[in-house]
């Protein structure tokens, strides 16, 4: 989704902003230079307020110290190890959850009876906030990887199912009819016609659930902490080691950003045939 906003910028401004702001005398205001200046200014403010004692607090380390803590943590492994552990859990949970979601979505989208009986159950479960599921699952799965992978997979399933069903429902009847005319079997139609045609919608669901998977990993690690980056953040907060805490938050943010970017690139490849693919991302 990161690209979304970036892309919007390239859309010519057709809504007559110029009229509202008078004739703009400073064209620089229409570039993102001001925005980057704001970010730099805020970081400088952070640095100065901590260094010069404008903000006297143990919880407010200068930004430069956070950066060095990140660097140190990544090289010494103090941050790298939990980060890697979290990522491994997140990716396993995501893969399990999204494959289950796609299969379930295809079934619900094509088999009428299943849809009528199972969809209401899914709808009823969906609004349950995920953190609430962690405590009971601890009873069954303990505090280890199994718990976190399960929670992530569970979180991922719902958006993927919903978007898959949506994609399957919107398929052009002519496509299915054509496949039937050529004598394609049900399974073949599903794999060769329905799945590709629903792919843009499935991808949208997969993208939403990617960031959801990251949040869920962090949440599960915080509640049922034994390792991982979420646990590291919480420990650093308890132990009053703010640099480490901010460093860990920074790492997650970067990972989230990279994951999203990677997904958008992948999506473009998968959906290259799809004319709306570019407009969607």
């Amino acid at each position, binding site marked *: *989704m*990161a690209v*979304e*906003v*970036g892309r*919007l*910028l390239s*859309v010519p*401004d057709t*809504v*007559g*902003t110029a009229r*509202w*702001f008078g004739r*703009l005398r400073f064209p620089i*205001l*229409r*570039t993102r230079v*001001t*925005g*980057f200046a*704001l*970010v730099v200014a805020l970081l400088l403010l952070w640095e100065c307020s901590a260094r010069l004692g404008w903000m006297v607090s143990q919880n407010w380390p200068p930004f430069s110290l956070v950066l060095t803590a990140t660097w140190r943590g990544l090289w010494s492994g103090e941050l790298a190890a939990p980060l890697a552990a979290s990522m491994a859990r997140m990716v396993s949970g995501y893969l399990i959850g999204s494959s289950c979601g796609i299969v379930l979505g295809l079934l619900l989208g094509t088999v009428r009876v299943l849809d*009528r*009986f*199972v*969809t*209401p*159950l899914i709808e*009823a*479960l969906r*609004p*349950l*906030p*995920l*953190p*609430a599921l962690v*405590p*009971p699952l*601890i*009873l*069954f799965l303990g505090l280890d990887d199994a718990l976190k992978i399960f929670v992530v997979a569970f979180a991922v399933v719902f958006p993927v199912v919903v978007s898959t069903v949506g994609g399957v429902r919107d398929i052009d009847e002519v496509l299915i009819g054509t496949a039937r005319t050529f004598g394609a079997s049900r399974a073949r139609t599903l794999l060769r016609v329905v799945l590709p045609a629903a792919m843009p919608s499935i991808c949208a669901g997969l993208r939403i659930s990617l*960031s959801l998977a990251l*949040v869920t990993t*962090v*949440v599960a690690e*915080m*509640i049922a902490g034994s390792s991982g980056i*979420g646990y590291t*953040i*919480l420990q*650093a*907060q308890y132990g009053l080691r*703010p640099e480490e805490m*901010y460093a*860990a*938050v920074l790492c997650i*943010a*970067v990972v989230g*950003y990279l994951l999203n970017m990677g997904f958008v690139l992948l999506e473009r490849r998968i959906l290259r045939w799809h004319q709306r693919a570019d407009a969607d991302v």
Partner: protein
Amino acid sequence: MDRTGSRLLPGLVSFVAVLAIWELAGRYRLVNTVLLPPPSMIAATLWQIVRTGTFLAPLGQTFLLLFVGYALACGFGIALGIAMGRSEPIYCFLEPLIELMRPIPKAALVPPLFLFLGFGATMKVTIVALAAFFPILIATIQGVRGVDRIALDTARTFGCPPVRMIFKIILPASLPMIVTGMRVGLGLGLIVVVLAEMLAGEGGLGYLILDMQRSFAVRQMYAWIVILAVAGLTINAVFEFVEARAIPWRSK
């Protein structure tokens, strides 16, 4: 049978079926009833909590925090979204900062906020507002940018003042997008408020659920989860009801 009936019935049937299987599995010791008590036992505990009215205070606490934070997020998100969607300079000024903040999973900000705002209500309202803010903002920007140009030009031709334009054209036209963002935001807000309560340990549904698990009061834990689930379903239903009223022209 009317249409809603034929839509609701299969769902009800499968819901009852799931409960029956769960109950029987417990009765015949197919699952460990200590960890997963049969629904009848959970229902008894639940009834106790509901009858004595003990559920009111935690439920009220959690949802009050959620609503205050969510209302803040909606107010700021929509206002800023309109400003950024309408004005290129404002957009360019804030976009890099927002792009920088957005990928941070808001759950990760709970511990830093503990340090600054303590464990109380301020902290929880802030984190809910933060979590819900970004999806609402992004959706509003996209909605505002997607407003039909002809409608805007027509309004301008008739000399419509900017403020009126916002309320009469831009807001109604971008409402479907805004509501989509608000729905995402509400889900995130609910996740974050429960998490914050669990970590802060100062009451609320999230705290109770985790506390019951830690003290191994399994039945109570499930009862509180049911209460949370029902509350979640209810606000979802309210949201859909309001959505249908607010944007009747949007086909399902």
